[in-house]
C-alpha cells in the first residue's frame, strides 16, 4: 500500500490544473449511514468516482443535510472529523487518502524544473512527507494523530498520554519514550504521564523501561493528540534498560550534582565480604568519600560526616552502617534505588548541609510470591515479596544477619570467648493501592549492633524507623503526599570493670516528622512542588547508672534536649524555552530549642570553661530557649548548548540544627547528636556549582564535569582530648569555625553494551579554620587548615565485561590521596615518661590509598519457567594486597613512644556468595 501511495503521488503530477472544473453542485440527505454508503450515494447522483480503501472509512454512522453545495463543501463536511484527505482530479475522480494531503504542486526543487504551479493555498508550499518504504522491517503499529491540513504551519505537535501496565493497569513511571533518530525523548512521571513534542509527520517512537517490554510505534502526527501505552511486563530484566530509562537525565535535568544508583545496576560490582552494598558503590562516584575502610559515614564535597541527610523511605537513618562501617545497614534485596543530591538539594529536604541520600525500598510484587536470598561468608540476606490482595497490596519483608557471634562463641581463646560482635537488620514494607487516586505505603525498619571488644564493656546500638505515606491524586494536575515518619537512634555502653565506677550508659535521639508535599502541574512550562513540614526532636544525651551494689556512681542524667524544626518550601520547574530550564526552590526553616532545660551563660570576651560561667538560666517545659532560622535558596538552571550538551549552574544554601559530637577523626557508632541551643549555633553553608554535561553516541556515553565552591559557618570541632560523653557543659569543649571547600568532578559513564562502567575523578580540597583571641580556642594559629577528610585526588574505575549472557567479569580500581594526619614532630620527657609533641593539626598525610577488586559472576541459566534463578559471585577484594594504612597513631608504652599504623584489609580477601531469586 505504501508503495502504491508513493506512485500515486508521482502520478498526481499529471493532474495539475484541477480546481475550477468542479462546478457541479449537489444536494444530498443522509441519516446514520456509513461513510461508504454516503459515498456510494454521491457516486449515484454525480459523475464523481471515488478511489479509496474501505477500511480507512471506518464504521461510524454519519448524518448530514446538504443543499446545492459544491463537492468540496460536501466532502469537507463528511471527512471533517476524520483523518481523511481528498483530491479531486480534473476528470472527476476523487482520491481519498489517509492524512497525506495530495498537493497539486510539488515542493520546490522536487524536479529541476522551476515552474511554479497553483496550489489550494498559495502560501503553503508543502514539504514532502512520504511514508517510509523500507526502514522498518517488522510490523509495527502505526498511529495517526490528526490529519494534515494545508493551512497549518506548525512544524511540531505535542503528544501526551499515560503509560500503563496492561496486566494490572498500574501507571508506569520512568518509562523512556524515545523518538528514533531524532534525539527527542521524554520520561513518564510518577503517575505514568508524559508529554513529548514531535516533529510533524512520521515518527518512530520506542518505549523502554525496566521490567517492561520494549515497544515501537509509528506515529504520524499532524495535530496535538493523545496516545496511551498499555504495555506488558517483560519476562527478564535487562539491567541496561534501567539506565536507558534516564538516558538523557545527565544533560536534561536542571539540578546539579545528582546521582542515582539503582540496585540492579550494581549487581556485578565486586563485593566486600559478599555484600552488595549500594552505599559503598556511592563512594566510587566523584565527590563522595569515606575516611577509610572501617569508618562509618560519608564525606560529601568536603563536608563532615554529620552533614548528610540519609533517608530511608523519608525517615532519617542516623547510622546507616554495621560494624564500624564495614557493612551498610541496608538489605540490598529490599532497596530499589538511592538518589544522592550533593549539589542542589531539592527544597523539600533540609536540615543537613552537604547532601541528601534518598533511599527507597521496593514495593512488593502484588501478583505472586517472590523472593531473593544470598549466602555469604559473614552474612546472609533474604527478602520476600508477599501479595496480600491480588493487584492491590503486598508486603515486602527483608532480613539480614551475621554469624560472627557464633564463630566467636565457639572459640577456645579465653579473651575472645566473652567478646561479641553481632548485627542484624530487618525491614517490612506494606504498600496498598486503594484506588487509582490513593496509595498507601508503610515501612518499618530496625537494625541492631552489639559488640564487645574489651572484656569489660559492651556496646550496643540500634536504629528504629517507621514511615507512613499516603499519596493522593486530586486531579490530573494536583497530587499530594502526606508523610509521617519517626526514627530513633540509640546506643548503650555497659561498663563492668569490678571497681566502684561500673556503669550503664544510654544515649538516644528520637525524631518525628509530619510533612505535606504537594505537586501542581500548572502547564507545560511550570510545575510546582510545595509543602510544609515540622519535625520534633528529643535527645536523651545519656544517663549513667550504677551497676552493681558496690558502684558509687551517682545516677547521672543529663537532661533531655527538645527542639522543633519546621519549614515551608516551594519550588518551580520553570521551562523558559526549549533550551532553558530553571528549577527555583525556596525554603524557610525555623528552629526552636525548647525547655525544660537549664542553660549556662558564659562571660562575653572570655574563653568558655567552667570558670567563666556567669549565670545559669532555667527554662520551663516547652518554653522557647532560643530560636534560629532563615531562608534557604535552592536554585539551578540548565541551558542546552546543543541537544545533547548542556550547561548547568546552581546556588544552594542550607542550615543544620543538629550536630554530631565526636572527638575521633572518623565517624563512629558512639558519636552523639547534639541539638543547637543557647550556646551552640546552627551550621550554615552556601554552595555554588557550575557544570557541563554531554551525552555522546546516542546516550551511550555520559560525560559530566562539575565544579563547586562551598563556604560554611559554625562547623563544630573539638578541643584536643575533649570529653563529650555525659558532659553537662559540652559547649565549653567544642569550637565552632569556618569551613571552605572547592573541587572539580569528572565522570564518564558507559551505560550500555557488553563492556560498561564508569570512571570518576575529582580534585577537591576541604579546609577549616578556628580562630579566637584565646589560645585554647584557636587551632593552628587561627589559619585555615586541611580537614580530616581533605583528599585532593580521588579516582575510581568501575568496569563490567559480559563475556556471555551467563558469565561476566568486573573490576574496581580506586585511588585516593592519603588523608591528613597530625604527626609527631618530637619527643619530650614529662613526669618521668616520654611523650610526643604533635605538629600543627593535619600538617602531614598518611600514604596514598589504592585498591583493586575483581569479581566474576556466574548466572544460572535463563529459562523463564525455571523456579529459581541463581547467581554466583566470586570476588577478590583488595586483589593487590595493598596494605592501605587507615590511620597512624602513637602510644607511650613503658615510657617509650611507639608508632603504629593500622589497616583493615591488608591482604586480598576472596569471597564467594550464592544468590537466588524466585
Amino acid at each position, binding site marked *: 500500500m505504501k508503495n502504491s501511495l508513493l506512485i500515486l503521488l508521482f502520478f498526481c503530477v499529471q493532474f495539475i490544473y484541477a480546481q475550477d472544473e468542479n462546478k457541479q453542485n449537489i444536494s444530498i440527505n443522509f441519516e446514520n449511514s456509513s461513510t461508504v454508503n454516503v459515498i456510494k450515494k454521491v457516486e449515484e447522483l454525480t459523475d464523481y468516482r471515488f478511489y479509496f480503501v474501505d477500511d480507512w472509512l471506518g464504521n461510524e454512522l454519519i448524518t448530514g443535510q446538504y443543499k446545492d453545495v459544491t463537492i468540496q463543501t460536501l466532502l469537507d463536511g463528511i471527512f471533517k472529523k476524520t483523518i481523511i484527505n481528498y483530491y479531486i482530479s480534473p476528470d472527476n475522480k476523487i482520491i481519498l487518502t489517509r492524512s497525506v494531503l495530495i498537493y497539486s504542486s510539488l515542493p520546490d526543487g522536487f524536479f529541476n524544473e522551476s515552474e511554479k504551479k497553483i496550489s489550494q493555498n498559495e502560501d503553503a508550499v508543502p514539504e514532502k512527507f512520504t511514508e517510509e518504504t523500507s526502514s522498518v522491517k517488522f510490523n509495527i503499529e502505526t498511529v495517526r494523530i490528526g490529519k494534515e491540513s494545508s493551512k497549518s504551519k506548525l512544524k511540531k505537535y505535542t503528544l501526551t498520554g499515560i503509560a500503563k501496565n496492561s496486566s494490572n493497569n498500574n501507571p508506569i513511571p520512568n518509562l523512556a519514550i524515545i523518538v528514533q533518530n531524532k534525539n527527542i525523548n521524554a520520561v513518564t512521571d510518577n503517575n505514568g504521564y508524559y508529554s513529548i513534542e514531535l516533529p510533524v509527520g512520521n515518527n518512530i517512537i520506542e518505549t523502554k523501561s525496566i521490567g517492561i517490554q520494549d515497544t515501537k510505534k509509528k506515529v504520524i502526527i499532524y495535530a496535538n493528540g493523545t496516545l496511551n501505552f498499555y504495555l506488558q511486563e517483560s519476562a527478564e530484566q535487562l539491567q541496561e534498560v534501567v539506565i536507558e530509562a534516564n538516558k538523557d537525565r545527565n544533560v536534561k535535568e536542571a539540578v546539579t550534582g545528582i546521582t542515582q544508583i539503582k540496585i540492579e545496576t550494581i549487581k556485578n560490582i565486586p563485593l566486600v565480604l559478599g555484600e552488595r552494598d549500594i552505599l559503598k558503590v556511592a563512594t566510587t562516584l566523584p565527590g563522595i568519600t569515606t575516611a577509610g575502610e572501617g569508618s562509618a559515614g560519608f564525606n560529601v564535597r568536603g563536608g563532615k560526616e554529620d552533614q548528610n541527610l540519609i533517608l530511608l523511605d523519608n525517615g532519617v537513618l542516623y547510622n546507616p552502617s554495621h560494624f564500624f562501617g564495614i557493612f551498610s545497614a541496608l538489605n540490598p534485596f529490599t532497596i530499589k534505588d538511592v538518589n544522592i543530591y550533593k549539589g542542589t538539594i531539592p527544597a523539600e529536604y533540609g536540615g543537613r548541609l552537604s547532601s541528601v541520600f534518598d533511599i527507597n525500598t521496593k514495593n512488593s510484587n502484588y501478583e505472586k510470591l517472590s523472593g531473593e536470598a544470598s549466602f555469604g561468608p559473614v552474612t546472609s540476606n533474604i527478602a520476600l515479596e508477599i501479595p496480600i490482595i491480588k493487584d492491590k497490596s503486598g508486603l515486602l519483608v527483608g532480613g539480614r544477619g551475621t554469624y560472627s557471634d557464633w564463630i566467636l562463641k565457639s572459640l577456645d581463646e579465653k579473651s575472645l570467648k566473652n567478646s561479641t560482635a553481632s548485627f542484624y537488620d530487618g525491614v517490612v514494607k506494606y504498600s496498598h493501592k486503594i484506588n487509582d487516586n490513593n496509595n498507601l505505603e508503610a515501612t518499618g525498619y530496625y537494625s541492631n549492633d552489639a559488640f564487645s571488644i574489651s572484656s569489660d564493656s559492651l556496646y550496643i546500638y540500634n536504629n528504629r524507623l517507621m514511615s507512613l505515606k499516603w499519596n493522593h491524586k486530586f486531579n490530573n494536575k494536583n497530587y499530594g503526599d502526606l508523610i509521617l515518619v519517626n526514627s530513633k537512634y540509640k546506643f548503650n555502653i555497659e561498663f563492668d570493670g569490678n571497681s566502684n565506677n561500673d556503669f550503664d550508659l544510654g544515649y538516644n535521639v528520637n525524631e518525628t516528622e509530619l510533612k505535606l508535599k504537594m505537586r501542581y502541574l500548572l502547564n507545560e512550562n511550570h510545575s510546582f512542588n510545595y509543602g510544609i513540614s515540622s519535625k520534633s526532636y528529643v535527645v536523651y544525651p545519656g544517663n549513667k547508672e550504677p551497676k552493681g551494689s558496690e558502684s558509687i556512681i551517682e545516677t547521672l542524667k543529663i537532661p533531655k534536649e527538645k527542639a522543633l524544626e519546621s519549614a515551608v518550601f516551594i519550588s518551580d520547574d520553570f521551562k523558559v524555552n526549549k533550551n532553558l530550564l530553571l528549577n527555583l526552590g525556596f525554603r524557610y526553616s525555623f528552629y526552636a530549642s525548647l525547655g525544660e532545660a537549664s542553660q549556662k551563660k558564659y562571660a562575653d570576651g572570655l574563653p568558655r570553661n567552667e570558670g567563666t560561667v556567669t549565670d545559669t538560666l532555667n527554662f520551663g517545659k516547652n518554653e522557647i530557649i532560643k530560636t534560629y532560622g532563615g531562608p534557604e535558596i535552592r536554585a539551578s538552571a540548565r541551558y542546552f548548548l546543543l541537544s545533547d550538551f548542556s550547561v548547568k549552574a546552581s546556588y544552594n544554601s542550607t542550615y543544620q540544627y543538629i550536630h554530631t559530637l565526636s572527638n575521633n577523626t572518623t565517624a563512629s557508632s558512639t558519636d552523639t547528636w547534639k541539638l543547637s541551643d543557647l550556646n551552640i549555633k546552627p551550621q550554615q553553608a552556601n554552595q555554588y556549582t557550575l557544570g557541563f554535561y554531554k551525552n555522546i553516541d546516542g546516550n551511550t556515553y555520559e560525560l559530566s564535569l562539575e565544579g563547586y565552591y562551598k563556604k560554611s559557618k559554625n562547623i563544630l570541632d*573539638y578541643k584536643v582530648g575533649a570529653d563529650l560523653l555525659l558532659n553537662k557543659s559540652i559547649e565549653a569543649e567544642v569550637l565552632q569555625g569556618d569551613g571552605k571547600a572547592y573541587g572539580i568532578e569528572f565522570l564518564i559513564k558507559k551505560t550500555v553494551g557488553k563492556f560498561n562502567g564508569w570512571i570518576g575523578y575529582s580534585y577537591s580540597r576541604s579546609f577549616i579554620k578556628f580562630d579566637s583571641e584565646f589560645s585554647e580556642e584557636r587551632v593552628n594559629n587561627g589559619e585555615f587548615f586541611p580537614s580530616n577528610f581533605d583528599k585532593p585526588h580521588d579516582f575510581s574505575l568501575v568496569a563490567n565485561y559480559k563475556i556471555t549472557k551467563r558469565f561476566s567479569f568486573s573490576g574496581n580500581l580506586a585511588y585516593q590521596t592519603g588523608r591528613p594526619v*597530625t604527626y609527631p614532630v618530637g619527643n619530650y620527657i614529662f*613526669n618521668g615518661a616520654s611523650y610526643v609533641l604533635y605538629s600543627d593539626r593535619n600538617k602531614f598525610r598518611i600514604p596514598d590509598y589504592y585498591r583493586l577488586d575483581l569479581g566474576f559472576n556466574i548466572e544460572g541459566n535463563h529459562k523463564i519457567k525455571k523456579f529459581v534463578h541463581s547467581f554466583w559471585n566470586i570476588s577478590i577484594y583488595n586483589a593487590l594486597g595493598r596494605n592501605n594504612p587507615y590511620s597512624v597513631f602513637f602510644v607511650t608504652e613503658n615510657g617509650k*613512644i611507639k608508632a603504629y599504623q593500622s589497616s583493615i584489609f591488608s591482604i586480598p580477601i576472596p569471597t564467594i556468595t550464592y544468590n537466588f531469586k524466585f
Partner: protein
Amino acid sequence: MKKVKINHIIYLIIIVLIANSCIEPFDIKTTTTTTFESALVIEATITDEFKYQEINLSKTFQLEDNGPLAESGANVKIVDDGQNTYDFREISPGKYVSYSEFKALPNKNYQLQIITSDGKYYSTTPTPLTNSTQIDNIYASKEIDDLGFEKISILVDSFDPTGNSKYYRYEYEETYKIIAPKWSAYDLVVTSNVPPFSIEKVFKTREERVCYKTEYSNSIIQNETIGFSEDRVFRFPVRVLLKDNAIISHRYSILVKQYVQSLDAFTFYKTLNKLSGSESLFSQNQPGFFNGNVFSVNDPNEKVIGFFEVSSVSSKRMFFNFLDLFPGEPLPPYFTECEPFAPSNTFYANDPSDLFNLINSGSVKYYGENDKVDFTNPGPFLVVSPECGDCTKLGTNIKPDFWVE
C-alpha cells in the same frame, strides 16, 4: 572508661572478618629538619610541703633519640603576689632547685618566670594553691579479674567534706625487698687472670642476700569525684600488681602521694594522658598540640609545653607481705631463671677453663658444691646467674630509712 585493648581488636578482626587487619609498628623518624620541632618543656609542681622546691627544664628531642636535652643556664624564679621572689639555681643540667626551702601558702598566687640562655622570656599565669585534702587510708586488696587472673590492687580512700578538691593526681614510690634465692655465703673469685689461671672460693664480704629496690611511677594517674554524690575517693586503684609479679614476693611498700589539682591542671594532665594512651583500631582521638598555662612572652605562637602547678599534697605509706595475703601459697617466680649448673673447670695447657671465663666476666655466682658430676655438669661447683646469688645486681643492700619489718 577503660580503653579498648588493641589485642582484642586484632583477634576479632582476624577471626570475625576472616581477613586480617593489622596494627603494625613502624619506624618514625624526625631526622629531617622539616619535621622536627624544638620546644621548651617545663615541669614545675611546687607544693605545700616545706622543702627545696624543684623545677625541671628540657627541650624536645628527635623521636629516634633517647634522652631529653636539658635546658641549661636559664634564670628561673617564682614570684608571688606578695612580691616575694624565690630564686632557683641549677644543680645538674636542666634541674633547678630553690635556694631556700619554702612552701606554697593558701590565698597566694604564684607565677613562674624563666629567661633561657638564649634570652627568651617565658612566664605563666598566676596560680593559687589548691585545696588541701588528706589521704585517709591506703590498703591492698586481692581481686580476680574477668580473665581469671589474681591481682593485688593498692586502693586509696580520701574525703573532702568541703567538696572543693574534686580533681586528684597520684604518684607513687614503691620499694620492695629482694631475697636472692640461690644465695651462698661463699663467692668464687679470680686469683690469677694470667696463666696459670686460678680461681678461689672465699667468704662473701658484703650483704648480697637481702636488698631493696625503689621505683617511681611514670604514668599519669588521675581521679575525679565529679559526678559522685560527695567529694569522696573510695577504693581508687593507684597501682595494680599481678599475683605473679616478682616484686611482691616478700615485703612490699608503697608511698602514695595525692596531689589536689586545679581544673586546668587536671585537664592538662588528662589530655596528655589521653593522647599517649592506647587507641582503638576504629577510632582515634584527635591529637594535637595543647597549651598549658606556660607561654612565651616574646612570641605568643611559640609552642611551650608544660604546666606550672601549685598543689597541695598528702602522702601515706603502707607495707604488706606476700604470705599475709596468700598464706601458704608458692611465691611468685623470681625475676630470672635460677637453675644451677656446673661448668667445666679443667684447664688445658694455658687456656682458661669455662668456669674461669664465666667468673671472670661476672656472668655467674657461686652457689654450692657439685655432688653429681656428670656429662652435662662436669665442674666441681654449682653456679647460678648473678641475680640469683647476688641481690645487688637488682637493688641496693642498704635498707631504706623508712623500712620497717
